[in-house]
Structure formats: structure tokens, C-alpha cells
């Protein structure tokens, strides 16, 4: 087990290295000129050149990359040749001159909203998806099954921006059941936090629960056909035990795989949902940084998102062994 985790960990570092390298060189191939973009209204060629120097775009990409890697471990100094240098302590993920802030601070500020959005949404959609998926399987072919699958199809068909806007306009702006969403720290104002997050969670859940209803239903139905389920029933086990202890556990493996990756994907930022509900998450930070060609932020978010996905993959693989005794990690 330890050897397996070590190998995966080393692979993760190699992958992250290649990813950041790719982002750096792709960015340098873009036609946009970040030095001009950050030039402001009164721009002259000389100011553009100055900005190119400030943004360290006047050095070869490979050296930019070396400085980035070095900053991760040893920190770095920006505007070092001026009387007002900017120190970025290790682990320095870069400094955004467009936002006048070090990237780590920006990301640290963005993580809580994304974390709570993803985790809350995950809990809601898994609860709905598993519950109604199982009910649908148990009532296969009956009106309950058809109704649940119909709703699932509808939920799966609706794009998140539509669901989000409809919920926001209906619940907040027309019915005034909730105040306008405004991000607050859950530990400072839990009531306002819940009032703000309930609609984003439902938005995320509607999309994903639909998929998990169908997935759970299919998995449970498949397992119901297996011999050991028939044996369990023949032995007189209660139906609840058959479903929960035997059928569901065996059918969980693909659900865990999908859930782990979906959660990891969400932890990288739910761009549309964050924007609709004005949540200060990683998704909106990433999109706006791409629009502004803000390389330090783009690189850092790529790095972090990739790390989350890779770790989630590893966790899912390890969970297989816990869920299914037939799987052995080696």
C-alpha cells in the first residue's frame, strides 16, 4: 500500500510539473500582450515596455518558469531593481500586478467559497441521487420509477445558468423568500451563510442528482440480478438489509468513482454557479484571470486544480479497497 501511494505521489509531481510547463508555454504562444493589457488608458510604447519588464515578460519563458519553480520553494522578489520591491514568501505562487496581490492570498481567499459550495452541493446531490435512485430501482417499472426518471431527465437537461437564474429570480427577487446572496464566513454568520448557500447548493444538486439517480438505479438493478442477492433474499434477510448492506455496497464502486471526480472537479471551481450567486470562488477567479491574461493566477489555479483532481483519483482508488473486498491495492 505504501509503495503504491509513493508511486502515485511521484507520478503526481511529474504530472504537475508537465502541466505548469505546458501552461507557461501555451500562454507565451497567445497573441495577446499582457503588457499592453495592463497599460491603462494613457499608453505609449515605452510604458508597454516598462510593463513587460515589471511582468517579467522580457525574459525567456524558460527563465520565467525557473523563477516560478524557485519561488515555490524559496520565495522571490518582484520589482527587485526598484526602491519599492515586493517580497513574495515561499511558497510563492506568483504575484498579480493586475490585482496588486500575491497569488497565494487570492487563492486562499477563494478556496472557502468553492469548498463550501462543492461540499454542500455534494451532500445534497448524493442524498437526493442515492435515495431516489434506490427508490426508482425498487419500484422498477412502476409510476414512482417513471416519475423519478422523468424528473431526472428534466434536471439533467437544464443548464446550470438557467436553473441558477430561475431560482434566484423566483425565490429572491420575486417571492422575497431569501435575501440577496452575499458571501459571508459560515462561522461568523451561519444564518446568512445558509441563506446565501441554499440556492447554489440546490443549483449544483439539481444537475448532478439527476445523473446519480440514474446511475444508482442502474447499479442497484444490475446487482439485484446477481446470485448472491437472490441467495440473501432466499435466506430470509429483510429487504432493507439486502438493499443497503449487499446491493448498494456492491453497486457503489462506479458511483464512488464518479462522485470523487465530480467533487474534485467542483473543488476546482463551479464557474457559472459562482458567478450567478456572486460567490468569491476559484472558478470565477480563474475565468476572470483567463480573460485578463493574468498568467500567475492562471498557472497557480491550474496547478491547484490539477493537484485536487490527481489526489481525488488516488483517494477513489484507495476507497475501492475499502468498499469492495475483492479489490486489493498493490
Amino acid at each position, binding site marked *: 500500500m505504501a509503495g503504491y501511494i509513493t508511486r502515485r505521489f511521484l507520478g503526481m509531481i511529474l504530472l504537475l510539473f508537465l502541466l505548469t510547463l505546458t501552461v507557461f508555454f501555451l500562454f507565451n504562444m*497567445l*497573441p*495577446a*500582450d499582457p*503588457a*499592453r*493589457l*495592463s*497599460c*491603462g*488608458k*494613457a*499608453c*505609449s*510604447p*515605452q*510604458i*508597454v*515596455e*516598462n*510593463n513587460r*519588464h*515589471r511582468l517579467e515578460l522580457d525574459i525567456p519563458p524558460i527563465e520565467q518558469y525557473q523563477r516560478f519553480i524557485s519561488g515555490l520553494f524559496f520565495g522571490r522578489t518582484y*520589482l527587485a*531593481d*526598484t*526602491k*519599492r520591491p*515586493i517580497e513574495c514568501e515561499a511558497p510563492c505562487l506568483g504575484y498579480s*500586478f493586475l*490585482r*496588486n*496581490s500575491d497569488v497565494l492570498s*487570492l487563492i486562499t*481567499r*477563494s478556496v472557502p*467559497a468553492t469548498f463550501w459550495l462543492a461540499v454542500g452541493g455534494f451532500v445534497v446531490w448524493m442524498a437526493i441521487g442515492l435515495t431516489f435512485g434506490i427508490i426508482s430501482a425498487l419500484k422498477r417499472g412502476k409510476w414512482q420509477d417513471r416519475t423519478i426518471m422523468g424528473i431526472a431527465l428534466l434536471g439533467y437537461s437544464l443548464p446550470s445558468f438557467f436553473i441558477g*437564474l430561475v431560482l*434566484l*429570480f423566483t425565490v429572491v*427577487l420575486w417571492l*422575497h423568500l431569501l*435575501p*440577496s446572496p*452575499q*458571501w459571508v464566513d459560515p462561522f461568523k454568520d451561519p444564518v446568512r451563510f445558509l441563506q446565501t448557500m441554499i440556492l447554489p447548493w440546490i443549483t449544483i444538486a439539481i444537475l448532478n442528482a439527476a445523473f446519480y439517480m440514474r446511475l444508482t438505479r442502474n447499479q442497484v438493478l444490475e446487482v439485484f440480478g446477481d446470485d448472491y442477492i437472490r441467495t440473501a433474499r432466499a435466506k430470509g434477510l429483510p429487504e432493507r438489509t439486502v438493499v443497503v448492506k449487499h446491493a448498494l455496497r456492491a453497486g457503489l464502486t462506479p458511483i464512488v468513482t464518479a462522485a470523487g471526480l465530480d467533487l474534485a472537479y467542483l473543488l476546482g471551481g463551479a464557474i457559472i454557479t*459562482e*458567478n*450567478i450567486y*456572486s*460567490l*468569491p*470562488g476559484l472558478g*470565477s*477567479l480563474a475565468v*476572470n484571470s*483567463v*480573460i*485578463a*491574461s493574468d498568467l500567475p493566477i492562471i498557472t497557480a489555479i491550474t496547478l491547484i486544480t490539477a493537484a485536487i483532481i490527481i489526489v481525488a483519483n488516488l483517494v477513489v482508488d484507495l476507497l475501492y479497497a475499502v468498499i469492495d473486498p475483492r479489490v486489493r491495492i498493490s
Partner: protein
Amino acid sequence: MLRSDAWMRRALALGATASLVLAACGGGGPSATPAPPGETTAPGETTGPEPTPGDEAKRGGKVTILSFNEEFDDMDPQRVYTGEDLAFFGATIMRSLTSFVYSEDPEVANTVTGDLAVDAGQPNADATEWSFTLRDGLTWEDGSELTCEDVKYGVSRTFANDVITNGPTYAIAYLDIPGPSDADAEAGWLSAYHGPYDGTGQELFDQAVSCNGKTITFKLKQPIADFNMTVTLGFSPVPESKDTGEQYTTRPFSNGPYKIEEYTTGNGGHLLLTRNENWNPESDPIRKAYPDEWEVLFGIDVKVIDQRIIESQGDDAYTLMYSAVQPENLATVFDSPTQPKPEFADRAVSDFDPYARYYWIDTNKIPNVKHRQAIGVALDREAIRNNSGGEYAGELGDGVIKPNLGNQYAPTGLWDGLLGQPIPDNGDPEYAKQLIAESGEPMPSITWDYPQTPVRDQEAAIVIDSLSKAGINVQANPIPGGQYYGIVFNDDQAHEFGWAGWGPDWPNASTIIGPLFTDEGGWNLSRVHDQDFLDGVKDALTELDPAVQAKKWQDLNKLAMERMYVVPTTFGLTQVIAGTGVAPTYQWAPYGSWAYAEIYRKPAQ
């Protein structure tokens, strides 16, 4: 709130402003400077705002601003450079030597008046020196005195172009300080003075900017007739002890009626301003400072902003938008481009925004003037406007100077015969063909650069269709919005012509013609290098007689159109709406913004 004749009144306004400056320069001395309404002219005399009945009833509460932006571009007084930001920060935390008057009447609003200074500035006989005397009782948010040295230090920061970036650079352009040596220029410096952090050339700056007690004097390279408007941009004070360089933009020190309590950026971020208890209202004739707090909420979807303010439920009644009403909601709020629906009459406004929209044509890539004229003649400007929202989008333009610039504007006659014959709004492809034939050269294939949005994708189709009727082969080049100007300012990546918009820095065409058509101006997308035109710009900039100067800008505007450096499309209109609980809701003419210094919460009914 309707001002269908707004441009006419603003035209009168600039006439009045110009007259004031003319009087100041031509009158031969300080005493000739007229006093704007409510303004003292005696140096050293302090005048506070006259209390008006009902002031106490207007004080208190919080006014909220909903913004789709994720943050302010800058809050550093040497770097703020967006009209709405200048208006907001100018009304709350960032005072300048002079300001524009708060009034619903554009004629009055475009008048420059003393802010930190007791009056609108005193020029010498040829306007190569300007002096401003500070009021008594000016303080910073910690209660310390705001001094002439603070103003001088603030101005000096503009020269530190290695740290203080993105802001207006008029101090570098106008102050009598030599340009950079070749070595300095090579190193990226814009002046022989490198700013206070580096310190090189400090003596040059000290000669150009001097303090004598409460009076600061600026020596200029050349006569600048409207320098007292220039100092509204980037000439604000900064206390040296509080200067944090690049980081100052995230927490500037306040000298206005409010101070920064909290500032977080990104979606869900906010700026919270609370009262600056050390602000001395007796020293400030401009700001009423009615609300106890201002809060700007960032990252709100524009559709949500519209709905929240239209509904105006609960706290949303005390809300302003930092954007414009979205096209899909215009019919809900307005009966016509100039007429709000009765239920929104006291809080919805449709008025000129600061911008003229146009298509630049690269004169290097299309050097033949007949070819450039053929592009303008063939273009279906009416279809372009209709695609952008019809009459809500604005009036069809005839130049780069808008009618709301008062006496700086005169009809160029561009579409009424300037190009040889009248050109209909939907273009004249046959006449365009004739112009191409007269050019003596085949029309080259051209590409139209544009920042991509769904609306502009449709606009690209109109451009291609209308020009193809004149036999002009056009390709469209959509560019992601955030990268657009980075690409079209690159000579190697820009194509033959493209989309753009420009608004003046203050109500004078010196901040239009210069920027758009000279390299020094910084926005020369047309790559204009015609020497006679450049000489004309220099001549107009140094003209001391505002009326004569205005005529020169008019002539240059007309010449630029005749040579078709740009094809003007629309003089933009913007529609905005406020919550039901805030007033006044007029648009302040100098920046086309809310009148932040006068905004208050309406007392509960």
C-alpha cells in the same frame, strides 16, 4: 430624469467653462478668475458648505452600489483613471486640487472649481505657471494636517513609472521637466525625474513644482489653458509616511468624508467606506456626505443587478448600479430612448455617456485616403446602431468629439457633403465604388478586428455585408474581449481596421484629438503620422484662447474625418436606474456618473 436636450445644455456648459478659462488667462491676473457658483476667490479664505434645510433628515444609513466588476482597477489617486471611479472616489476619499461643480445642470457641472484649493487656480500671463492655494483646515483620516508637501509628493509619484502604473501621465507630459536621456529611455523611464522612490532628478522636480506655505506652483513646458482641469487627474495628495508604493492602491489614505473600512476583491467581495471622523466639513464646499456608509458589492451578475434595482425591495431600495441597464430590460424601464416609464421617472436616466464609438483605420496599412473614405461611405451605420440597441445605443456620430463637449463640438458635415456628396445612414456602395476608382489603386482586402461579443459578431456580419456591396473584400477577426487592445496596439498583430471607443479625460477636446491621433497620446490606433495634422494638434494644445482653441479642435476633428482616420459610428447613450430610496439620481456631466457627493437616502415615508 429625461434630458433629450442634454447635449445642447452640455454644449452651453462647455461654452461657459471655456469662457471662464479665457477670462482667467486673458484677464492678466488672479483677480480676473471668475468665481464659480458658491466658490470663494480669496486665497486663504475657507468656506464650508452652506447648511440647507433638510440636511439632517438626509443624513445617515448606508447606500449600496452593485458592481459586476470583481474589484476597482485602482484606488491609488495617481492611478485611478476611469470616469465612474474618479467620480466615486473623488466624492468619498480622494480630494483633488480642483473639482467640477455638483449640479443637475450640465452647464454648471462642467465648471471647474476649487476643492483642496481655495479657487480654480491662478495662471500666470501665458499659462505656463499655475498656482493653487490650499484651504485651511484640511486633514487626513488620522487627523494630521494635509499640507502642500503632501500634494507635491503625490504628484511626484506619477514619475515613478516603474511602480505607479496605469494612471494618467499628464504630470509627466506637462510639467517643465526634461524628458529621459537615451539611457533612461532605454531603461524604461519616461522622464529625467524618476519619482520619489528612486530619487534621480529630484532637483528637476523641485524646480518644476514648488511649495510656498499653502501655495503650490506648477511650471509647465508649454502654455496649458485648461491645466486647472488637468489637476483633477492624478494630482491628488499622498502623505509620504503612508505611501506603500505598488500596494498603496489597495489602501489609500483618505482626505475625504469617508475612509476605507474593508476591501475584499473578487466575486462576493466588497468595499466598505465609513465616516472619516477627522474630515473637516468646513474645509469642503463640495461634498455633502449624507450616508453614514457606502458599500460596493463586487461580482454581481448584470441581470441580477437590473432586477434587484428595478424591484427595489428592502435594502435594495438604497442601491445604485455601477453599470448600465441591460438591453433586455430597457423596455421595462423606458418608453423610448429618452423617456422613462412614469413609474421609473424619478430614478431612471437616459443620457450621453462619455464615449464616442468609432472604427479606426490603420493609415499605414491603408495609406490611400480614397480607400479609407470608401470604407466609411460603404458602411451601413444605421444597421450597426440598430444591432447595438437602436436609438437606445446613441446618436449617429459625425466625428470623435461629442455634442456634450459644448463649444468644442461643431458638426463636421462628414455625412452631409464633406466627402463629396451626402452619404445616407445606410451607406452608399455606389459612391464607395467611385471613390475606389478615383484612388488609382485596387482596393486591398481588409480585415476588421473586434472584441468578440454576440452583438459584435452580428455587427461583423453587417460590416462584411455592407462593404462587400461596394466590392470591398472584408474578413472579420474576433478577438477575446480582454485581449483586444493588447492585440490591436501591436503593429504586427493588428489588421487594417477595427472597433474602438473613447471618452475624454475632462470636458475639453485636448483629451480626445491628442490621444486618438498622436503617438504621445497613447491611443493612436489609426497610426496617424501626418506632420501637418500633428503640428495642428500641437498648435491647438498651446492655444491660450479657449474659444480659438475650441475652433482648432473642431477643425482638426473635421480634418480627421475628411481623411477618414476613423469612421465614427455612434455618440453613445447610457441608461441607468437607481433604487427607489436614493436621490438625487441625475447623471453628473463631467464623468457621466451618479452625483455621489450629493446622494442621500430618502427619509422613510
